[in-house]
């Protein structure tokens, strides 16, 4: 009997070990590096800057997640612009920001409905490609906004402020708050989020400047845009690095979770927090002294520019090539940069003095 129990224990151990091995093996299959595969934007025909703006077009908005306040704000901006231009708007999208398969099927739905253009915020840079290319083949103009795909899978990308501006200004904001001295950490969303990673790269680059020589980035943590996980990641950062002076969270979910945690802990006011947040989310924490300043672009403007870009593409005023420029109504003129990227401009900084002027 004893022997058999030992044997059984061994079997269980073996099973557990092989399971662990299997899991580690799974960990090895990462997504292909997307950055290495950057072709030029798919474009055909020639741009005619003087072409008339077409009316009666249909533009489908496909955010990462519907009912997400940020994307609702952006899509409302798009809706407003389309109304002004005499075109119609529709919004479809998955209920979960990690349902990439769902997003692919929404791309296909929009293609089947033969919309004239679609504005997509991609959950994943590669996964949507096949579906989006299919759409472009059917003469549907594809604009990505907020989060990009690979450049050859869309006509143009409307970037919320250039990645470079965002990354660098967040470091500058935090540096001022902590007096250019001390350990800092970053609380990001998912490890695979394209925009997050680009911003973080620019943050690291900015930190190389000699004026930040007394600041040290100790860790990048991932809260997966989930309140509870972001909470626990923040706790972990503060425990692992007791001398931490500041946290940058370039995600709206992460920053408000971190702020809520800080405001109810002994670290309130001692550890500075900045990053990208919305004024409505952060109002309480700015007013109670947990957060000094943070920044963001106006999502409604982002949605509006995405809509105007989509219409300009569908009207043939631009094709998505570098150097082309178009007029985006009251927003002024925009020029397409490298890889078909159109940048919204520098982000707005919110602090105690101006936060009450904004409502989104």
């Amino acid at each position: 009997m004893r022997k058999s129990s030992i044997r059984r224990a061994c079997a269980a151990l073996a099973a557990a070990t092989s399971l662990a091995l299997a899991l580690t093996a799974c960990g090895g299959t990462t997504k292909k590096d997307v950055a290495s595969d950057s072709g030029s934007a798919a474009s055909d025909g020639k741009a005619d800057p003087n072409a008339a703006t077409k009316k009666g077009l249909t533009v489908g908005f496909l955010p990462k997640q519907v009912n997400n306040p940020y994307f609702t704000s952006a899509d409302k901006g798009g809706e407003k612009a389309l109304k002004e231009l005499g075109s119609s708007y529709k919004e479809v999208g998955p209920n979960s920001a990690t349902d990439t398969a769902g997003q692919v099927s929404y791309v296909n739905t929009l293609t089947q409905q033969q919309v004239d253009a679609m504005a997509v915020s991609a959950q994943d840079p590669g996964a949507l490609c096949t579906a989006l290319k299919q759409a472009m083949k059917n003469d549907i103009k594809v604009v990505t906004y907020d989060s990009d795909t690979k450049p050859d899978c869309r006509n143009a990308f409307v970037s919320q402020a250039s990645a470079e501006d965002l990354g660098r200004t967040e470091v500058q904001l935090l540096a001022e708050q902590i007096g250019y001295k001390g350990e800092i950490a970053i609380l990001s969303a998912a490890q695979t989020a394209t925009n997050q990673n680009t911003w973080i790269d620019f943050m690291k680059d900015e930190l190389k400047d000699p004026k930040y020589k007394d600041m040290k980035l100790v860790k990048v943590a991932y809260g997966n845009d989930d309140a509870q996980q972001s909470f626990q990641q923040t706790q972990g950062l503060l425990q692992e690095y007791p001398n931490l002076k500041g946290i940058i969270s370039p995600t709206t979910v992460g920053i408000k979770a971190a702020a809520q945690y800080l405001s109810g802990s002994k670290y309130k006011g001692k550890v500075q927090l900045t990053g990208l947040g919305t004024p409505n989310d952060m109002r309480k924490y700015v007013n109670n002294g947990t957060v000094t300043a943070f920044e963001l672009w106006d999502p409604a403007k982002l949605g509006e520019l995405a809509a105007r870009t989509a219409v300009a593409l569908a009207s043939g005023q631009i094709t998505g090539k570098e150097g082309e420029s178009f007029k985006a109504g009251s927003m002024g003129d925009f020029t397409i940069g490298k890889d078909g990227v159109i940048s919204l401009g520098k982000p707005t900084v919110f602090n105690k003095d101006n936060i009450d002027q904004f409502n989104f």
Partner: protein
Amino acid sequence: MTVTAPNPAPATDIPKSSGTRLVDRVFKMRELAILVVFLAMIVITQAGNSEFLSEQGIKDLLLNATILVLVATGQSLVVITRNVDLSVGSTLGITAFAAGTYLQGGGNSVVAVLLAVLLGIGCGLLNGLLVSLGQVPALVVTLGTLYIIRGIDSIWVGSRQITAADLPGGFVDFGSGGISAVPWLAMIALAVLVATAYYLKHYGSGRELYALGSNPEAARLAGIPVRKRILAAYTFCGALAGLAGAMYLARFGNVDSSTGNGYELTVVSAVVVGGVVFTGGSGSVYGAALGALLLTSINSVLPALGVSSVWVLAINGILLLLAIAVDRIVAVRVASALKKRNARHG
């Protein structure tokens, strides 16, 4: 036989009761095992990072576990009756938002909590009625209500959200406050836990839940009001999910239409890791609470040790499988021990 049998029971003892005691002992050991794993994990982490068990650290550990402990307590009652409630995540989300909108309109905090609990009871009643009257598998029914409640939540909430600025300051402070390292929320959860455990152990209707889960047919023949008990278990589970919703609001200060999405799986994991057997009839709420504490603490331990959080899911899965394996081995052991004993007494 490796399970050392205690001294032969006195002749006056009927074999059944000594058998029950053995089963009891085994399951106490089961809870002890989780406790040992938990403590070992905490000690190792503390050795690696002395900040881990600071006052703030302990408070965080307790606060992190609180909400899951509450929902897992309710869930274990349902699981004990050989059913399951998958709609708890949706219930938590909708009740949190309901309490939030009420508070946003300038309502009283206590009434807001009651409102959340009442709405939770409503959801629980719905589940209970469907499962007990409809005689349909609970897994399917509550999967349905999971989507229905989440759907209603999405339609009602839309893109609105409740932020900390909308809530009364006292309510949010209550969510993170407490007496030194022990948060208020954890005290409430502990009170609920102890009361539930006492009820399950010392009240006839509590024991009947176990009987029902062990063998529904026999329980029915023995005159146990099966439908009523199942309905009660679901209602209680819903009420606790509602209470957890109110606590979620106080703790995170932020609720939108996706709050609590996918939470049911975490809850079921906690219950199973805690030794509440999925086929019903055995386990305790203390075990479930320990399971919840263990699972949420892993989320805190890994960052404190500087391990990437991508490991969390895999580790949770391994714990789950280990827990089921242990349960299976224990069940086989107990069965053969009982058989042997009955033979001896018979």
